[in-house]
């Protein structure tokens, strides 16, 4: 594989950059693989990369219905954080933060990781108490957390509404300074390029139409481009999880819902943090191009549409304007939607299944992008070793039956309620 470096950049400049190697190939599916990963999104690509890198398993195929990176890894708001209270979520995400910090070097691909910090705003005394508790829990797990009072928040984000007569005055906030953003497409492309170079077949435009299971063991998959035998199969398909589960006669604690995001026209640098509104569900950051990247609530009903509806967008942006009134002056550049695999406790599932050789990675709700490296790393471990790692032991499928839920937000089973 051609290394991306200043030397190669200069060298290729002499030939007008016409002679760069393709970043990944377009192979035809082989008859058999050791591991087939279904879903060429961030998590699937990361899983294949760590299977090859950490476990030396390279007879791997990624099967993608569309094109790689065309689903949620290309549709998110690029936020990376580990500001969770529960141990399972905190330790898992903080392990991921380490992988994020090393990712550009590791992948030889600039993922533009920008640890600019995230601030969750608090709008009442009770919320400040809750944030103090969450911050303490984070620090006990080795995650950085700083509780800010109103004045400290005002110093960092003076453009927020600090006037006296607002419906949701800012009391303070909880900051994780090491959180931030990354270039989402680069994450998919970086993992794809490295996985490809280690021998992984990335097969695009190939839809899975069925599974071959016999005697409780996975034998292979049936696709629009023929049957493929596989010793092990990993499902990494986010919002399409239920569609594939149905083909396996499995009913999962997952509902598929629609989440929208949007960006404004680009403006000069104004916001150097990720900020979330605490009296609703709205978050904003500014991209390197200057666009304000915004998102919030789900549309609120089951959907596979990958496109949103205006009432929710209006609701979300109303919260944004309440938090930062200057946003009302901006023109909207683009809006889009993605489909979320909403689990019944708001936390993901990375586990084996009752079918031998079939592994499940789903339930990422709003938080799939930041989990990309940790999810890939632990899922690769789970597939390669046929047992869960301690980092994803809590993300079991049977926790719903046994009552070991990880309900970070305390929303119960209706995680789509806003």
């Amino acid at each position, binding site marked *: 594989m051609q290394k991306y470096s200043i030397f190669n950049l200069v060298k290729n400049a002499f030939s007008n950059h016409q002679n760069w190697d393709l970043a990944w190939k377009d192979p035809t599916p082989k008859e058999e693989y050791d591991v087939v990963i279904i879903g060429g999104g961030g998590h699937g690509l990361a899983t294949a990369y760590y299977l090859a890198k950490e476990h030396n398993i390279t007879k791997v195929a990624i099967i993608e219905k569309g094109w790689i990176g065309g689903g949620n890894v290309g549709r998110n708001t690029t936020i990376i954080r580990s500001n969770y209270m529960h141990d399972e979520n905190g330790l898992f995400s903080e392990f991921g933060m380490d992988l994020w910090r090393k990712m550009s070097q590791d992948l030889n691909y600039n993922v533009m990781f920008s640890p600019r910090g995230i601030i969750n705003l608090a709008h009442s005394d009770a919320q400040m108490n809750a944030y103090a508790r969450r911050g303490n829990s984070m620090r006990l797990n080795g995650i950085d957390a700083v509780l800010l009072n109103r004045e400290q928040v005002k110093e960092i984000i003076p453009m927020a509404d600090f006037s006296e007569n607002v419906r949701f005055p800012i009391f303070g906030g909880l900051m994780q300074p090491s959180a931030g953003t990354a270039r989402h497409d680069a994450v998919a492309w970086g993992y794809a390029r490295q996985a490809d170079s280690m021998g992984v077949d990335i097969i695009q435009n190939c839809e899975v139409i069925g599974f071959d299971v016999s005697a409780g063991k996975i034998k292979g998959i049936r696709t629009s481009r023929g049957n493929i035998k596989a010793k092990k199969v990993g499902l990494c398909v986010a919002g399409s999880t239920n*569609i594939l589960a149905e083909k396996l006669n499995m009913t*999962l*604690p997952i509902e598929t819902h629609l989440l929208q995001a949007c960006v404004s026209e680009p403006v000069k640098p104004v916001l150097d943090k990720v900020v979330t509104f605490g009296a609703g569900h709205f978050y904003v950051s500014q991209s390197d191009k200057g666009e304000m990247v915004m998102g919030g609530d789900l549309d*609120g*009903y089951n*959907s*596979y*549409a990958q496109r949103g509806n205006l009432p929710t967008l209006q609701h979300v942006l109303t919260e944004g304007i309440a938090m930062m009134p200057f946003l009302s002056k901006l023109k909207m550049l683009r809006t889009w939607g993605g489909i979320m695999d909403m689990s019944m406790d708001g936390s993901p599932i990375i586990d084996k299944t009752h079918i031998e050789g079939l592994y499940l990675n789903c339930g990422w709700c709003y938080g799939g992008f930041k989990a990309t490296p940790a999810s890939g790393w632990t899922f690769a471990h789970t597939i390669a070793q046929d047992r869960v790692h301690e980092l994803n032991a809590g993300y079991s499928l049977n926790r719903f*039956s046994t009552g070991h839920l990880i309900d970070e937000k305390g929303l119960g089973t209706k995680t789509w309620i806003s």
Partner: protein
Amino acid sequence: MLYINCPHCGMRSQNEFSYGGDASVKRPELNKEVSDQEWDNFVYNRKSLRGKHLELWQHISGCRQWIKVERDTTTHEIFRTFKADEEVA
């Protein structure tokens, strides 16, 4: 914007409604032995169908009645609506 035909009030915008999830889920019967699996299926497990989906909505800013809506989860087209106690053929 979705327009939902409330069987009690007529066609109204989605802003008047709140969503209640899959209407095909049945609570296990009382006075009967209920297995853990049955409780799981009632509380957690969902088919989350792609295509026609029968679901509960509440006309929260209108008559406040719960209703059943048959809607396509890919196109968002609404085919039929029913009163909560109406049998869906």
